[in-house]
């Protein structure tokens, strides 16, 4: 499977449901690289959340926009970049969800997606391109 720095790109319509294509592709790539089933499951959830956020928040579910997913295969890691048009920026810091307050009806059930992304992959990097595009990079290490 690919030599150093092989990239695979996918462009998704900004419509919920299409994140499943990115999930399936990420899982297939990770499996080929030899990641464990547990890590593949973690990656699937993280990629799903990142793409969902990109579709809903970054691109406001505007069908005229697409979400770019770029997977970079290296000998010791897999990086997945999710790029949207940046209608809303990705927050750099999201407070940990307070389930107690959510269950008590005192807080909105939001912010879970970013919390899961940060908890499930080894590295997360958020950046904003000069043209306003958001890029969320997730990296998992092949141990």
């Amino acid at each position, binding site marked *: 499977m690919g030599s150093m720095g092989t990239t695979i790109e996918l462009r998704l319509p900004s419509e*919920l*449901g*299409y994140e*499943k*294509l990115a*999930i399936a592709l990420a899982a297939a790539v990770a499996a080929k690289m030899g990641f464990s089933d*547990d890590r593949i*499951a*973690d990656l699937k*959830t993280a990629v*799903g*959340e990142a793409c*969902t956020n990109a579709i809903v928040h970054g691109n406001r579910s505007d069908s005229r926009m697409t979400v770019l997913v770029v997977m970079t295969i290296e000998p010791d890691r897999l990086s997945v970049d999710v790029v949207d048009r940046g209608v809303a920026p990705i927050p750099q810091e999201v407070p940990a*969800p307070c*389930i*107690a307050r*959510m*269950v*008590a*009806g005192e807080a909105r*059930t*939001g912010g*879970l*997606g970013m*919390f*899961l992304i940060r*908890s499930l992959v080894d590295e997360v990097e958020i950046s904003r391109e000069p043209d306003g595009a958001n890029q969320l990079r997730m990296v998992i290490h092949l141990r």
Partner: protein
Amino acid sequence: MGGETTAAVRKARGACIVDVSGDVTSFSESAIKGAWAEAVATAPRQIVLNFQKVQYMNSAGIAILIDLVAEARKTQVRVSLVWRNEHFEKILKMVGLTRYLTVYSSEAEALSAD
């Protein structure tokens, strides 16, 4: 794109079982909450959410579970989840929901714990 949620209610040993299948995402809210309301209307002492046929859940699905747990606390109905899926049980533990929602590997276990 695929994975439509279905949710149906049945009774077993004094409890209500809500059988959910498909994906559990933002698209699932109507189906799951509709079934929940149907179950609550029968005044059960326990509602068991049976997710054994759920293939995929995202954070919007977790938010639905949180809403149901919040509802259960108001109506004092015991709620539990049946789902033999290590990854999603880990996710639910990670977000802290397992403090409020016990996850069982089988319906029999969930009903016996009542």
